């Protein structure tokens, strides 16, 4: 896990006008404020640039309301990028733009052509040593298999996700060997499963709110541990937990709007390390 969190590039995508009304959502019926969503997005990208990442912002596609959530379209690990086949049929077109971007990064791009496979990047948790793939409404066994075939060096374990949209709807990596995990039963069960399946030992960072468990860890040369996490305004209790992390550069990022359509912090981002190529 030495180079865990080292990235050079961040791929994001603009918010389409159809986002507020057209984005898929599971439960939350709260109306999305498109303007605030744009503001948040802008701030988000600014943070990434601030960190020194080269940010590639793909153009929005009005026919794809969810296209801002680029994470679901690709899984990048090392020099290889797997283009997914999103579980929601309406989102499959989003992959094309991502393919172009990743190819331009001269990554080894693998496409998921199997018609029976579905995989959302939001269900893929890479810990630095292995993959966990949530088997959710959006991701199936076949999709996980293809991921395993693509990243042969790593163990790929499947984790049933009974509730919630994605595996990473309630967890994420908050650092090398550190899993941020929500407190819900679903999250805790998934955590146990992961622990059971893993040969590696992870520390856990338990936060009261599932949604808050999704954060973005980046390790920039010279800047150490950087963590983008939820704001105290949004999840006060969970934010306190993050604030206890030592030796971290903590960056609260507002995510009030995306969360209404199940968008977490990591959803709007694909991170890649162009130097990963051996």
């Amino acid at each position, binding site marked *: 896990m030495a180079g865990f969190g080292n990235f050079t590039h961040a791929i994001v995508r603009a918010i389409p006008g159809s986002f507020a009304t057209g984005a898929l959502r599971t439960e939350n019926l709260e109306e999305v404020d498109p303007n605030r969503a744009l503001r948040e997005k802008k701030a988000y990208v600014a943070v990434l640039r601030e960190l020194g990442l080269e940010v590639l912002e793909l153009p929005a596609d009005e026919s794809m309301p969810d296209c801002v959530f680029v994470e679901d379209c690709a899984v990048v690990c090392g020099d290889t990028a797997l283009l997914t086949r999103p579980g929601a049929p309406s989102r499959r077109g989003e992959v094309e733009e991502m393919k172009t971007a990743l190819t331009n990064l001269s990554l080894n791009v693998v496409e998921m052509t199997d018609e029976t496979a579905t995989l959302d990047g939001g269900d893929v948790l890479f810990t630095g040593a292995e993959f966990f793939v949530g088997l959710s409404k959006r991701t199936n066994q076949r999709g996980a298999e293809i991921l395993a075939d693509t990243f042969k060096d790593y163990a790929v*374990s499947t984790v049933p996700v009974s509730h919630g949209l994605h595996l990473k709807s309630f967890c994420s990596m908050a650092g090398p060997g550190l899993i941020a995990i929500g407190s819900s039963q679903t999250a805790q069960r998934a*955590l146990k*499963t992961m622990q059971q*399946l893993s040969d590696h030992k992870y520390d*856990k960072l338990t936060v009261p709110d599932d949604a808050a468990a999704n954060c973005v860890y980046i390790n920039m040369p010279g800047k150490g541990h950087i963590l983008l996490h939820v704001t105290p305004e949004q999840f006060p209790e969970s934010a306190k937990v993050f604030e206890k992390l030592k030796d971290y550069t903590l960056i609260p990022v507002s995510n009030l709007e995306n969360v209404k359509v199940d968008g977490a912090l990591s959803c709007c981002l694909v991170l890649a390390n162009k130097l990963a190529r051996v």
Partner: protein
Amino acid sequence: MTTEVGSEPEVKKEPEKSPEEQEAEQQTNPSESAPNGDAEPQPAPDNAENAEAEPAPSDPLSTPSPDGQKKEKGISRFLPPWLKRQKSNSQAEPRDGHAPTDTPTQPPTQEELEDGQEEEGPKGEGTAVQPTGGAQEVQSGEEESPVANAETQPVKQKEGEEWAPESGVPSALKLGKKMKITVCHVTLLDGTQFPCEVEKRAKGQYLFSKVCEHLNLLEKDYFGLSFKDNTDQRCWLDPTKEIKHQIHNSQWQFAFSVKFYPPDPSQLTEDITRYLLCLQLRQDISLGRLPCSFVTHALLGSYTLQAELGDYDPDQHRSDYIAQFHFAPTQTKELEVKLAELHKSHKGMTPAQADIQFLENAKKLSMYGVDLHHAKDSEGVDIMLGVCANGLLIYKDRLRINRFAWPKILKISYKRCNFYIKIRPGETEQFESTVGFKLPNHRAAKRIWKVCVEHHTFFRLTSPEQPVKSKFLTLGSRFRYSGRTQAQTRQASALIHRSPPDFQRTSSKRSARSLDGAPVVSVSDHTHPLVSTHAAGPGENGRDSALELYSDSKSPQVEEGAEPGKGAATAVPAEPASETWKAADDSSELKREPRVQGENIYVRHSKLMLEDLDKTQEEVLRHQASVSELKRSFMEAAPEPRPDQWDKRLTGSPATSLHLQAHGKSPTRLESALSDSRDISKSTEDDQSSGLNGQPEVIEVVEETVVIEEVVRVARPQSSAPETAATEPALEGKDEGSASSDSESEEEAEYHPQLSGSAHLIREDPEEEEQEVGLNQEAPPAALKPCIIREDVTDEAAATAANMAEPADAQQQEGEVLVIPEKAPNGHTHDSEAPPTLFDEEEEPSFVNGDVSHVEGEHAPQVICCSEPPVVKTEMVTISDTFSAQKAEITTKEVPIVHTETKTITYEAAQLDGSGDVEPGVLMTAHTITSESLCTTTTTHITKTLKGGLSETRIEKRIVITGDSDIDHDQALAQAIKEAKEQHPDMSVTRVVVHKETDLAEEDE
């Protein structure tokens, strides 16, 4: 060898070589051997003694070489077509490999001779027996000689003679007798072949030592020798057992390979060890066994290039210099380009450094060190079971769907083609669960069981458990890992002080080539067809002597279990039931026939198993059995083909047995082996449940066979003091001794990876019994006086008058009647030797649990502890102590996926079960009385156990009836119970188990 080496390279690729050699042998031999023809039989006895003498074989060999060469060359001219053909089948591969051998010293002749014999085997039945049958040296020798073809026999004789005269020095005695020497062909990791002469009775350890010596390898505990069994499955050669008993019908072809992949290769002491590990991994990678990504292929390959070629040299290394290497299953041009690119970047790196880098990257691969086995879950879905340093991994396709770390596993067992692991309950779970997997056949089940036992011991324990040798009767496999554990080997290697040995790292190309053309791994495969032929041969002749049969019987076992050696160990028959044994013999005969083998074996197994079970208990009780009786029983055990071994056993055994018994007194965990295996394992539960009901329950369990369980207690490293010595695992092999036991062992075995604080848990048998007692106890454990009368009925000729109402047809019925007398709070305190172990054992469970939790909690609060295994689609059997017997029974039924041909009926008397917990008592006395009639063997064990100040007497009676006709179980039972009551009016019958074995069809095969 010198000659061979010289000549072979040219001929190498030609399949004919071997035939030639063979021929040569034959021709030369006849003349020489002719005079000596009769000599063979006599020498045989000595062989046993000589077997152990390692030097003997080598010495003789070295001298004769000149002759060998001559012969070879001379002989080579004559190539009989039939020989050629043969060779093509079996020997072609080995030959080729063996050509390049490094050892020039070895005389070709011997090899030739041996080969000739073996190869001829198929043709000449007589000879065939020798290499394969292996069960009994002496006997086989004798038998063979008469039968052997003119051609073959001479060869043999020649062997013996030749050695003696030529070698002269080593031992006139040995040689003079008849040194059967054969040549083992060991494929080394660099793809070369290492021919090694070994005495035919040599144990695996000898060959392994020779190979390590040849390789100049000191850290050898990570390695092993493997061979392919008849089904082309890789089996590990057990160093503690004779080679021939293990390879069974296979050729003497082995592969030296990594058995335990060190999780951290940087901790290896010597570069040569790392180098060998690299070679293994390169092979694993190039064959696709160790999957890795493009980048990793390139990176690892580049380190290989650096290690073997040194710095990239533009002059030397042209564009295609990489093409001659074989790095990946599919090696693309792109990969080669990448490889070259990376190779350049390693400039200045020494070979040793490159190896280290190679390993540092390879060890991270998720499949590093994972030994995969095909299996199905309870729903018939194909999965893979992966055994690794940390535990057992479950894969579905390429996805990991579950994982059971060693600390989570309480018991590993197999029964027939099912493999079970009992899982420690999680934090929130109350009950242990058992997960079952179905393997393609029982051999596969046993194989993975063994691999698990070995990996657990090697990686998790500080010292291997000591097998209990004192046990005469063994149920199930007594197999245990006998080598050093990783902890021990690390300690040992820390003491290595020698200047780093020189070695050449030039293998990749070679191995790559060989891999391309003829995969090294598969080399041995080709021999299999031959093997089968061999087996068939003898059967056809129908001239198998009893001895041969025995050996054969073993061989089947071997095939199934791939554990030939075991047979010997297990084989000690405790019971003098001659009839039974006979029956066993018969079955063994059946086995002889290649096709039928499977079925027959099963039958025999099941039957044996029952007997064995009984025996096991008997063993426990057997305190007072006199040595002579034991001996007699041994002798009577017909199935045991090898007298020599028996002798050895006998000498050692009495003492040991006593020792064991002492241990056995400690009531630890009781797992009764009473009826079927499942029964045994679940006996506790069953009993309890019955107790709860307060009424006798009649439970019909349809199980495949009686289970012989081996429970092994292993001390956990963590729990035990850091010193390895401190912890000693206790073996719980119930040996039910007869030769048949071997077969049983194949059928199933258990292994308890639990760590026991007490190293003393030597005996499971006693424990088991005690457990049963506890279960059976109707009231306070102390007061109970259980008598168990077991009746095993094997119908062979006539049904026993007593029990058998009707003769069964060719089917064996075994009934166990357990009579547990009412508890008489007699408070007999017989010489209570309360073994100290008792407490330990009792404490064990808790200790274990605590330990486990501790382990899991290692990571401190922050660490995530997952106690709940994800739900796998495997068969989950929940066994709870407190559940009703019925439930337990039901679950039991579900577990076996295999069709049962054995029927077991258990009658439970009402029992009071105060506490679900088994309260083990102290075994006060135990003795066994055996009476035999023509058709019936009745064995009665009387055990007195001290529990909580009260003593209980338990009588267990086992009646085995062998017959052709169906036995009326009810009637037999009624009779047995009646008798029991009459005999012991003051006692109550608590448990009656009838085990019936009818025809067996083997689903496995």
